[in-house]
């Protein structure tokens, strides 16, 4: 399995969509940090470098990051179809489920890599504002961006890391859903579009308050405002991930190539 995982990571770093995503994640924190309309849109001024990562998440978790995650995860499998290498690989003595499992694992880790990159870029970009103690909040803790008085660097960094980790976890089901749809449609474009369609449909379902806590899209804001306790969020995400991964493997096992 480790050989398969290494191979899949090798493919991941060569994907065009990954490079495009990284480029976007370099550009946006830079623009946000120095954008003149920040106060008009978000109602605050940046006073610390620790607030730039919050701005990164607040502005990208709604649409941009799910989009990037869905596209790259779909492409990780779709690239095998466009190169025609899928049958070639499946003719080797590797079981289909193991091979797809390697893809699913790499897809699951991708949100962590993407958010780690965004965090690093945001912290570098925020250096302009400095990393000392400041009055206010990181935007990712209980006090929001206005905070609850003087904020020390260590708790500020801990808040940011925790929020990025939760955000990454909430993006994993989207990765796996993209893989599932790509298996279903045997196309990267089909997989990514179906994932986005599903996310948009889920967002619209908030008009039914009873099901809102169960929606995948409701978990995307868990890094700052979870719909229930974190235990619930993690459990629900685990259920989604398991369901998507199992469905993808079962479908893939029975596919004709």
């Amino acid at each position, binding site marked *: 399995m480790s*050989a398969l995982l290494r*191979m899949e990571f090798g*493919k991941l770093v*060569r994907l065009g969509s990954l490079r495009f995503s990284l480029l976007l994640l370099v550009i946006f924190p830079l623009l946000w940090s120095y954008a003149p309309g920040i106060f008009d849109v978000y109602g605050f001024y940046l006073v610390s470098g620790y607030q730039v990562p919050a701005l990164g998440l607040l502005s990208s978790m709604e649409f941009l990051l799910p989009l990037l995650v869905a596209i790259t995860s779909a492409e990780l499998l779709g690239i095998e179809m466009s*190169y*025609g*290498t899928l*049958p*070639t*690989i*499946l*003719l*080797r*003595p*590797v*079981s*289909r489920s193991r091979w797809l499992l390697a893809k699913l694992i790499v897809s699951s880790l991708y949100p962590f890599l993407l958010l780690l990159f965004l965090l690093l870029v945001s912290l570098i970009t925020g250096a302009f504002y400095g990393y000392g103690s400041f009055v206010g909040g990181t935007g990712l803790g209980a006090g929001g961006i206005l905070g609850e008085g003087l904020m020390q660097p260590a708790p500020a960094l801990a808040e940011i890391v925790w929020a990025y980790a939760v955000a990454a976890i909430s993006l994993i089901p989207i990765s796996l859903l993209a893989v599932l749809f790509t298996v279903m449609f045997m196309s990267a474009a089909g997989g990514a579009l179906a994932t986005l369609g599903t996310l948009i449909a889920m967002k619209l379902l908030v008009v039914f308050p009873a099901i809102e806590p169960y929606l995948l899209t409701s978990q995307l804001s868990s890094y700052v405002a979870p719909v229930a306790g974190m235990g619930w969020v993690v459990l629900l995400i685990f259920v989604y991930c398991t369901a998507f991964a199992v469905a993808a493997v079962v479908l893939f096992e*029975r596919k*004709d*190539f």
Partner: protein
Amino acid sequence: MPIAAIATERLTKAYGPRPIVRDLTFHVDPGEVYALVGPNGAGKTTVIRLVSGLAFPSSGSVRLLGFDPHQRPDVRRRLGAVVEAPAAFYPYLSGRANLELHARLVGGVPAARIGQVLDMMELGPSADRRVGVYSLGMRQRLGVAAALLSEPDVLILDEPASGMDPLSLHLVHRVLRDAAAQGTAVLLSTHHLDEVATYCSRVAILEEGTLIDEVDLRDRQARFRASVSDVHAARVLLDTQSFVTQAGIRGHEVLFQLTDPAELPRVAPVLTKARIDLLALSRDTFNLRAYYQDRLGERRASNADEAPDGEASESSFEGRVTEASEDEDAVGRGQA
């Protein structure tokens, strides 16, 4: 009785209501080259995909070295296959790097083996170039190299010579012949009838997913033709020899089949002793192309007879049947 390298039993594959492959039963033994031939859409690629385990049968069974390839994916450790034309590789990796990746997937091969198969397919000088810049023929040769990587017991190739120049074509056929000589079972689909007829053991003719004929070419290896001064006398004389099983006349030549190809040196002295001049003597290669056209023609004519008016097969095919019939020889192609 040894286990067949490949065996299918009433293999059927349907997409929706229309069967692509119907009730196909055949086997390929170790050391045998078995060719699937047929017009486009006959189901050759589907058979290749079913046998290699890429597609699932709708009914019937497939056995690869005695195992169901879906139940036992590890049996593919002994399989080498090319099912795409051109063979598919990661274009951003070199030919060598692609083979290294394949080597990891089969659980490792001796370090020298990669260079060996690259040289065998005359890809040594291009081995470190990106596959993205390879020509169609080079990709196909790399595909065959990848298939040979693990020294497989079974080789399955779909149109292995597609897009190749004549020299590469000859190379691939030579490699496949050598592999079979070393005991590998080779199953291939092809349109190169003249080339495969020279070394194939058996040829299956497919039409609309059905096996319409299986031609055994092995007994034809002992068939020869001679250009002589008196064909009638030569035929009568050869027909009486114990080492000749059958003799006939085609045009100005006498055709004969020996009990064993090793008996060939006995032919000239017999003719000379009877004062018959021997002008030329050569192996009589079976005209697979003509036979194939005849069989397809018969099949289509039969289908046309059964079909309602207006559904007859294309009349343009009749010309090919006539042309094929002119080649019919006295020894008889119909023994297949």
